[in-house]
C-alpha cells in the first residue's frame, strides 16, 4: 500500500517536485544561515580569545573590576610564581602573560621636536621567548604591512593607520608616554620595526604591539603582569570546560580579604559576550522557527491547491471504501517523504553554498566605525549540526502544511467530495 502511494507521488510531479523544491530552498537557506552564524560566531570567539579574553583570563580581582581603565596599578605581582603553579596544575593549557596599556605616542622630527602625537592603545605580549605562540595567535606575520616583527625589547609594531597618521616610517623612533605601575610618568623611546593591519576597526585605529619585556621596563612592572591568558590545547573555546576550570581555580586562589588575589574569568563573562552568545543561540532557534512557519504556509497553500486537484481522487478512494483517517495518514506519509527528500536536497545545496562561503565575504567597509571586536571578513563554518539542522524545518513544515491542508478532507461531507466527481 505504501509503495502504491509513493509510486503515485513520484509520478505526479506537481505533487512531488514542486513541494520538494520549496522545501529544498528553505532548508538550503536554513543550513546556509546556520553555517554562516556559526562561522561568524566562531571567528568572533577566536578573535576575542586571541586578542583580548583568552579562553580564560586570570587577573587580580580589582583589576577585573576596573578593567575598562586598563588599571596596571592593580596588576598581578609575582606573576612568575603564579604562572609556574598553574602550568603545573593545568599542564595541557597554554598560559601567556600580557599587559594592556594606553599611552600617548609621540613622533619626533629630525630635531627631536614633536612632529605628530596621538593616543594609542597597546598590548604587550611575549614575542621574544620563542615559546609563547603569541605571534601566531595574533596572526602577526600575515598582518604585517611593512617592516618586520620586533626582534628586541624596545622595538614596536604600530597599526598601519596609526603609523600613517603619525607620519612615521619603519625604523623611525617614537616615544611612548604613559604612567608606571606606581603612578609616575613614564617616557620611553622605541623604534618602529613594522606596521600591521588586522582588519578590525578597533585594533587598526590606534594599535601598538610590543614585547612584554620592553613594556615591563617602561612601566616599571618587573615581575608583574596585567593578565594571564589561558588557551585550551586544541585551540577551540569550550564554554563548559572554561566555566569549570574557572570555578575550580577561583575556589583555590580567591580570597575575599585580598582584593589583589587572582580571579579566573572565562571568555563568556568578558567583553559582554554572554549576551551576545545567548543572542546568537536565540537567533538560530528563531530562524528555524521562522522558516518552519513560512514554509508551512507555502506548503499549506500548495497542499490546498493540490488537494483541490485531488478531490476527485479522494472522493474515489472514499467510494472504494478507504476510510478518512487512512487517507489522511497516507497524505501525512507522503509529506514525510517529500520533507525528507527536500531536506536531503536542501542540505546538500546549503552545504555547497556554505562551503563556498567558508572562503569569506569582506564586510570591512561596513565596520569602519565599529567598536566591536570583529573581523572584517565574514566566513561560514560547517559544523556537524549543519548536516541535520535543516531536517527539522524541512520535515516539520511539510507535515504541518499537509496536515492543515488535509483538514479540508474532514470538513467535507463524503457525499460532497463525491458529488465533485460527477462534474
Amino acid at each position, binding site marked *: *500500500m505504501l509503495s*502504491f502511494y509513493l*509510486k*503515485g507521488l513520484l*509520478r*505526479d510531479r506537481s505533487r512531488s517536485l514542486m513541494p520538494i523544491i520549496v522545501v529544498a530552498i528553505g532548508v538550503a537557506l536554513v543550513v546556509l544561515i546556520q553555517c554562516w552564524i556559526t562561522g561568524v560566531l566562531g571567528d568572533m570567539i577566536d578573535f576575542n580569545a586571541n586578542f583580548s579574553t583568552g579562553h580564560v583570563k586570570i587577573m587580580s580581582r580589582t583589576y577585573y573590576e576596573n578593567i575598562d581603565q586598563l588599571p596596571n596599578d592593580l596588576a598581578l605581582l609575582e606573576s612568575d610564581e603564579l604562572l609556574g603553579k598553574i602550568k603545573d596544575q593545568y599542564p595541557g593549557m597554554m598560559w601567556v602573560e600580557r599587559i594592556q596599556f594606553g599611552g600617548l605616542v609621540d613622533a619626533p622630527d629630525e630635531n627631536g621636536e614633536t612632529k605628530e602625537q596621538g593616543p594609542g592603545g597597546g598590548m604587550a605580549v611575549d614575542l621574544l621567548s620563542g615559546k609563547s605562540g603569541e605571534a601566531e595567535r595574533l596572526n602577526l606575520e600575515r598582518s604585517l604591512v611593512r617592516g618586520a616583527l620586533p626582534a628586541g625589547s624596545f622595538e614596536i609594531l604600530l597599526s598601519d593607520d596609526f603609523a600613517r597618521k603619525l607620519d612615521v616610517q619603519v625604523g623611525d623612533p617614537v616615544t611612548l608616554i604613559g604612567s608606571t605601575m606606581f603612578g609616575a610618568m613614564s617616557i620611553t623611546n622605541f623604534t618602529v620595526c613594522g606596521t600591521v593591519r588586522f582588519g578590525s576597526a578597533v585594533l587598526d585605529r590606534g594599535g601598538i604591539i610590543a614585547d612584554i619585556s620592553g613594556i615591563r621596563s617602561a612601566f616599571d612592572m618587573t615581575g608583574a603582569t596585567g593578565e594571564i591568558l589561558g588557551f585550551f590545547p586544541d585551540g577551540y573555546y569550550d564554554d563548559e570546560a572554561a566555566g569549570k576550570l574557572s570555578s575550580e581555580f577561583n575556589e583555590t586562589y580567591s580570597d575575599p580579604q585580598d582584593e589583589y588575589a587572582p580571579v579566573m574569568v572565562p571568555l563568556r563573562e568578558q567583553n559582554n559576550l554572554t549576551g551576545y552568545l545567548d543572542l546568537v543561540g536565540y537567533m538560530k532557534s528563531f530562524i528555524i522557527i521562522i522558516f518552519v512557519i513560512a514554509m508551512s504556509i507555502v506548503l499549506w497553500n500548495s497542499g490546498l491547491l493540490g488537494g483541490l486537484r485531488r478531490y*476527485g*481522487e479522494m*472522493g*474515489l*478512494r*472514499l*467510494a*472504494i*471504501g*478507504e*476510510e*478518512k483517517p487512512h487517507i489522511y495518514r497516507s497524505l501525512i506519509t507522503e509529506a514525510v517523504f517529500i520533507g525528507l527528500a527536500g531536506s536531503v536536497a536542501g542540505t546538500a545545496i546549503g552545504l555547497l553554498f556554505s562551503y563556498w562561503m567558508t572562503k569569506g565575504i569582506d564586510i570591512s567597509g561596513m565596520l569602519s566605525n565599529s567598536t566591536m571586536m570583529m573581523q572584517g571578513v565574514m566566513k561560514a563554518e560547517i559544523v556537524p549540526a549543519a548536516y541535520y539542522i535543516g531536517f527539522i524545518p524541512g520535515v516539520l513544515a511539510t507535515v504541518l502544511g499537509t496536515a492543515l491542508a488535509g483538514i479540508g478532507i474532514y470538513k467535507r*461531507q*463524503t*457525499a460532497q467530495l*463525491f458529488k465533485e*466527481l*460527477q*462534474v
Partner: protein
Amino acid sequence: MENNTIIKIENLVKQFPVGGGTFTALNGISLSFGKGEFSGIVGPSGSGKTTLLNIIGSLDSPTKGEVTVMGTGSGGMNAKTASQLRKNHIGFIFQTYNLMSVYTVYENVEFPLLLLKMPASERRKAVLDAIEWVGLTDKIKSRPPQLSGGESQRVAIARAMVKRPGLVLADEPTANLDAANSHHILQTMETLNKELKTTFLFATHDDKVIRYLKRIVTLADGKVVSDESVK
C-alpha cells in the same frame, strides 16, 4: 425471495438544506432489490436518481426512513461501517470514469484489492481476470490519459468488479460514451451479471441503457412513479 433481498428501502426521505429552508430530493421511497437483479432507476435530470444511489452506496445518509444494504442498516451506520460496506460489498461506476491518472490500468484495477489487503499472488490473478473480462489485456500498462472514453469506462468496470462485490452501482455510466461503446460496456456488464450473479443497479435516463434493464424503476420529483419488470 425475501432471503434474496440485497437492498431494502423503507419510507426513505432525503432533504437538503437550501437557502433558509429545505429541499426534498427523495420523498417517501420504498423499494427492494434482490440478488442478481439487473435493474435501473430511471427519470429526468433532477428527479433524485443520484441521491438515491448515493444513499444506497452509503455515501450519504437518509433524513428519514431506513435503508438496509447487504444486511447493514442505515440506522446504526457510522463512517467506519459505511466504508467497510463499500470496501467489501459495493463497486461503483461513474459517468466520468474517475480513474487515477498517475496509475496504470493494472494499478487502477488493483487498488480496491490493496485496500482489502489481499495477498499478492491472489491479487495478481484477480486483477488480470478483471482486465480480461473487459477485454483490455493489451492495455495493462497504459495510463488513463492514453485511453479512449470507452476503454476508460471498461477499466472502471474492471475496478468495480475486481473484488467481486455483491452490488455494483452505476450512475449514468454511458453519458460520455457513443452508441457503440455504450453497447459494448452494457454487454460486458450483462455477461458479468449472468456469470458472477452480481447485482447491478443503474441510474440513467439513457434509452440505450434502459433497453438492457430487466427492471425499470421510474422516479419523478423524488417519488417512485412506476416499477416494472421487463421479461
